[in-house]
């Protein structure tokens, strides 16, 4: 229902006032090809600067691609970008257009501007605020709310007024778990009842694993993998991840610790190792059984996450959120 083919977008080089180039041109979309099925919750995962937002801005008609095709529900959005507003609802990262409105008025106005007559807009606003548990905050201006509540109000404006495709750019940023659950329940209801498709931008690997049907992993403007979270994890095989946190300096004089040292990725006092299950079990026994245990603060063993997939595919891991 939504297909993107060979999409290319290059931001021109930035020049300073004296015409000296200060930044090279950036190819933010580098031949992106993907497709989203009806009713699917499709994710774009990658760190900041991977080209996720650039991709959805082209999808929503806000940015013109240099080359490539975008087709949503049979409409060519490269040739007719103005049709995007009549096919999809977009939740951007900024709420400045709504900040001074109350939650109710922001939602009702958006509903009106999405084409609902006044009575319908009011009914839809009441329903969506109820659904997201925002009724108590309806009379508060957005800028007086906490970051998570404000984001939730913005989600309400994206959900009000039916659209067959929702494009959500990091919708749950700053939200507590209750608000997150409310968002995913509301999105799930629309998929179940109306077959709504969702394109979700995220850099949160845990969220990506738990809610998405399929994920496209982006790195430097390219799709480096695209599959279900399970399918992607199968790419890294059975390897498990062993995390060791030392109290102080790791006791490298101990042979069992020295043996693990070359394979460990270090972040401060934390060691992170990707090992086959047998080796991981043996390593846990070795470090928890002997003298090394005294130097150990904490340890954990986990099945592979999308972060491991991302690393295995050669992506840069900084910028991915794990909570």
């Amino acid at each position, binding site marked *: *229902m*939504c*297909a993107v*083919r*060979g999409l290319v977008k290059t931001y021109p080089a930035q020049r300073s006032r004296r015409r000296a180039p200060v930044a090279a041109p950036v190819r933010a979309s580098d*031949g*992106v*090809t*993907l*497709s989203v*099925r009806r009713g699917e919750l499709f994710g774009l995962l990658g760190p900041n600067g991977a080209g996720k937002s650039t991709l959805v*801005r082209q999808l929503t*008609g*806000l*940015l*013109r691609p240099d080359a490539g095709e975008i*087709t949503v*529900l*049979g*409409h*060519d959005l490269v040739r007719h*970008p*103005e*049709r*995007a*507003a*009549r*096919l999809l*609802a*977009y939740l*951007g*990262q*900024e*709420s*400045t*257009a*709504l900040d*001074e*409105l*109350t939650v109710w*008025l*922001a939602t009702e*106005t*958006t509903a*009106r*501007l*999405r*084409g609902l007559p006044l009575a319908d807009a009011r009914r839809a606003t009441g329903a969506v605020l109820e659904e997201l548990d925002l009724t108590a905050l309806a009379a508060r*201006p957005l800028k007086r709310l906490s970051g998570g509540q404000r984001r939730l109000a913005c989600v309400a*404006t994206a959900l009000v007024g*039916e*659209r067959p495709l929702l494009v959500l750019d990091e919708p749950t940023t700053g939200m507590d778990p209750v608000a997150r659950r409310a968002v995913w329940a509301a999105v799930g209801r629309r998929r179940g009842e109306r077959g709504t498709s969702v394109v979700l931008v995220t850099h949160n690997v845990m969220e990506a694993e738990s809610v998405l049907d399929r994920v*496209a*992993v982006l790195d430097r403007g*390219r*799709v*480096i*993998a*695209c*599959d279900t979270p399970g399918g992607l994890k199968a790419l890294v095989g059975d390897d498990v991840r062993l995390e060791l946190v030392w109290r102080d300096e790791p006791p490298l004089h101990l042979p069992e610790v020295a043996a693990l040292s070359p394979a460990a990725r270090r972040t401060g006092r934390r060691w992170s190792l990707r090992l086959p299950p047998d080796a991981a079990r043996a390593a846990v026994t070795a470090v928890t059984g002997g003298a090394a245990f005294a130097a150990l603060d904490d340890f954990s063993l986990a099945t592979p996450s999308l972060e491991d997939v991302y690393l295995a595919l050669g992506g840069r891991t900084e910028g991915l959120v794990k909570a």
Partner: protein
Amino acid sequence: MSTLSAESAPGAAPRAARDAVPVPRGDGAAELAPRVRLWPALGAVYRAQLSRARVARIPLLFVATFQSIGIMVLLRGVVTPGPGPEAQAVVAGSSVLVVAFVALNLLAQHFGALRASGGLDHYATLPVPPAAVVLGAAAAYASFTVPGVLVTAVTGSLLYSLPVTGLWVLLAVIPLAGAALAGVGAALGLLAPRPELATLCGQLGMSAALLLGVLPPQALPEPLRWARELLPSTYGVEALAATFGPAPAWASVALDLGVCAAVGALGLALATWAYRRAAVR
């Protein structure tokens, strides 16, 4: 051999991309949601902007009104009250200054900030005509000046012993001068490459409206008098000033207001074009 496999085709997509299932195009395109017509969209934007202005801009309206009243009190020492041209210019200029403060200065800042922060995306991804967004905001800002202009005009008339019987002309002056100044303000805000420049232009525009509107034209040197002719607020000031006299020349009042309307139409058209350009890059 000349056979080319898909794998070796020039510009072959990356591995994962090729795995993506293509979706058939063209056949059975989905029905588009209706486009929202100008007036309902304009009404919705106007209502939202006015409520926003009520909450966030009331302190600024006080500032605008007190600024104008302050100028009139200050000039009371050097300008003789009564039906002279100086007194008329001071009161009319101060009243229209409130419009310039809100419609030109604040609207330029509003659109400048919205454009810089990406806030225009919200409107650009809704099926509304660009003119609805620009006109709705401009109309809301112009309406918001009404109480300030009324208070200033009445206070000024009393302060300078001018007749209040002609003040009904404000019914035409506020919307038309409002349209002209809001059009210029919106265009400045949407065209300025940086929000600081939008703010600067708005402030300068307001300063120009202050200096060239409040001071009687007879006292100005030649180049400033030309600059005064170029400023859209001048025509609102002239229209209002004329009605303080004993026998207003209604034809010239109508002409002045016609200029305001024309500048308003041009400015708002330019702002709409600028909005379209700013929203989709």
